[in-house]
């Protein structure tokens, strides 16, 4: 069994607590033992590795930040390290856990009624139930505030109409956290599988995140009971709070993906012999590429660690998360491409994990807030000027008619 030795050039391990290291090592071993042997096949077959779900539940990987319901109540850094190691395995698998933990368990735990929590948190924690998150719509990605899905009061219940797209785990889910406009602003709803008028279908033809299920959700005169609303939700900001949780984890995930492609490239370069029996690692151009990757990964690790410490001290701002997600997914994308170059033709076949990571990271680059939108979020924090909605020429000075999309760019 090949054991990933880690990438820690700046000795950042010394900045982790014993507990954080143990959490990281447990997930690292799980990924080496259980994920890596099957993930290329899952990617080929476009299959979510559902066989891993019960074991991930037993390890407490779902809802690990929650401290009630017998869950471990991990801090921000430990949670981030879980995401790092899972994404070292596969971005699709990390997406599964991000959605289950940050986009389904978190809103039910933070905004749900006691009955909703008691019904869903234990099942979602064990993996007995799978959840999905419906915010993005076919015409509203970076601007979720424009959503058309509407929940209308009807007697003591609600009637939902609309559709959601790019929903991770949509067809697998037993329960969907769905965001809809109401006469009273945007609210969150818990919609159960099998509710009449609620349909889901899979997105086919994906060249990325193939080990993950991506779906479309449809609501046609879908009647849900009055207690399906998440009572603690008061507007779009609650959906954005969920996305902040998920995006924080993605910043760590980017480092994990980059560590995997870097480690693969380094190992390959030392073994691959060309010209006079020398390994290609002896070539200056290869060394420069490896040095670039190692340096960027080390910077990404430092960024993550500081985000985690800010989170644990209650000082983490949404634009800090944007900086982490934007930078680290960019570095993962660059590392995947450079690793692909170093592996030559072997970089395009799935005997090695590089091409899979390279394809996966294209999704991550634009989901959960595109790279560009996160740049604008940082820009707004720096200048105080929101630039998401440029003025339209030949018209009156632009007037913002839709909610501030500082949150923009969703994904289920």
């Amino acid at each position, binding site marked *: 069994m090949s054991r990933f*030795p880690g990438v820690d050039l700046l000795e950042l391990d010394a900045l982790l607590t*014993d507990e954080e290291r143990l959490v990281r*090592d447990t997930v690292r071993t799980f990924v080496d033992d259980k994920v890596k042997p099957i993930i290329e096949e899952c990617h080929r077959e476009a299959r979510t590795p559902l066989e891993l779900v019960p074991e991930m539940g037993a390890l407490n990987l779902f809802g690990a930040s929650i401290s009630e319901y017998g869950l471990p*109540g*991990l801090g921000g850094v430990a949670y981030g390290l879980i995401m790092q190691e899972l994404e070292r395995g596969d971005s699709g698998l990390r997406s599964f856990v991000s959605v289950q933990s940050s986009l389904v368990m978190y809103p039910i735990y933070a905004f749900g009624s006691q009955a909703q929590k008691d019904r869903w948190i234990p099942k979602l924690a064990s993996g007995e139930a799978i959840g999905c998150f419906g915010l993005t719509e076919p015409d509203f990605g970076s601007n979720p505030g424009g959503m058309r899905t509407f929940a209308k009061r009807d007697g003591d219940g609600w009637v939902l109409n609309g559709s959601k797209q790019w929903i991770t785990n949509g067809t697998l889910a037993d329960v969907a956290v769905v965001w809809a406009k109401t006469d009273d602003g945007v609210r969150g709803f818990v919609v159960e599988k099998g509710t009449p008028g609620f349909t889901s279908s899979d997105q086919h033809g994906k060249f990325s995140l193939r080990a993950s299920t991506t779906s479309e959700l449809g609501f046609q005169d879908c009647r849900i009971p009055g207690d399906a609303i998440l009572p603690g939700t008061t507007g779009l900001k609650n959906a954005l709070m969920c996305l902040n949780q998920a995006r924080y984890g993605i910043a760590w995930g980017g480092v994990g993906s980059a560590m995997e492609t870097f480690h693969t490239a380094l190992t390959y370069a030392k073994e691959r012999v060309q010209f006079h029996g020398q390994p290609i690692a002896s070539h200056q151009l290869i060394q420069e590429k490896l040095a670039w990757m190692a340096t960027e990964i080390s910077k990404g690790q430092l960024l993550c660690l500081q985000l985690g410490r800010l989170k644990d001290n209650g000082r983490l701002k949404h634009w800090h998360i944007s900086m982490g997600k934007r930078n680290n997914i960019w570095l993962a994308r660059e590392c995947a491409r450079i690793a692909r170059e170093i592996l030559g033709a072997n970089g395009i076949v799935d005997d090695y994990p590089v091409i899979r990571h390279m394809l996966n990271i294209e999704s991550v680059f634009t989901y959960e807030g595109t790279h560009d939108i996160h740049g604008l979020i940082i820009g707004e924090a720096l200048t105080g000027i929101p630039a998401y909605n440029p003025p339209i020429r030949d018209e009156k000075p632009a007037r913002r008619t839709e909610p501030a999309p500082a949150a923009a760019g969703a994904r289920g």
Partner: protein
Amino acid sequence: MRIAVCIKQVPNTEARLRVSRDGTWLEEDDLPFVINENDTFALEEGLKWAEATGGEVVVFSLGPDRVKDALLKALAVGAARAVHLADPAFLGGDALATGRALAAAIRREAFDLVLTGSQSDDLRFGGTGSIIAGHLGWPHVWLVMGVEVEAGHRTAKVTREMESGVNEISRVALPAVLEIQAGINHPRYASLKGIMAAKKKEISRPTPAELGLDAAAVGAAGSRLEVVSVAFPESGSGAQMLEGDVKTAVAALVEKLQKEARVL
């Protein structure tokens, strides 16, 4: 049953290894360490029998401060507490000195079974378990591939894999020392809850005096074997690549085996 499990922390062999400046060991500075693989199977076997019989596992290890990581991992998967022989006097010893110290620590409590891995991935002496058994005066079995504690917990049926796939099964009187081979079971992962619980469990650090040992009898001072040097093997030369399709290459290989190597 009360079960003692001895574990060793060893370098992760996937990492880049460098010989230390004095040439007698590896440069440990930036080396990642893990629990010796065979020992993880010994730990799982101990946890399994402790659970089946309503007992507990106490984990023992000898080594510097970094070994705490390995002990925490053992506590996170379910050991009740840990004993860490970390006093500088214990360090740098051979199997004889290490076995003597571990046996003294184990003897302070009543155990039904002592489990160890059958050898370590770094030094591969494979002697520490036998030496512990010698000091305790208990029977021991090496290269164990199966353990079945029998009713009453007075004996265990122990399977060893011999040459040519033959299994030897022996009945051993307890208490005994069993040295476990990799592959005997499926070591569990620490759950995140287990990790959170581990930090509340006790890790005691007895000194040689507390174990009733003279500091000169343990560690480097108590050793009879000295590592003179450690080196990577010289890489060989003279490998030949046979070109062409399988048929051509096989014909060329047979000819070389007959005429050059003269082994056919």
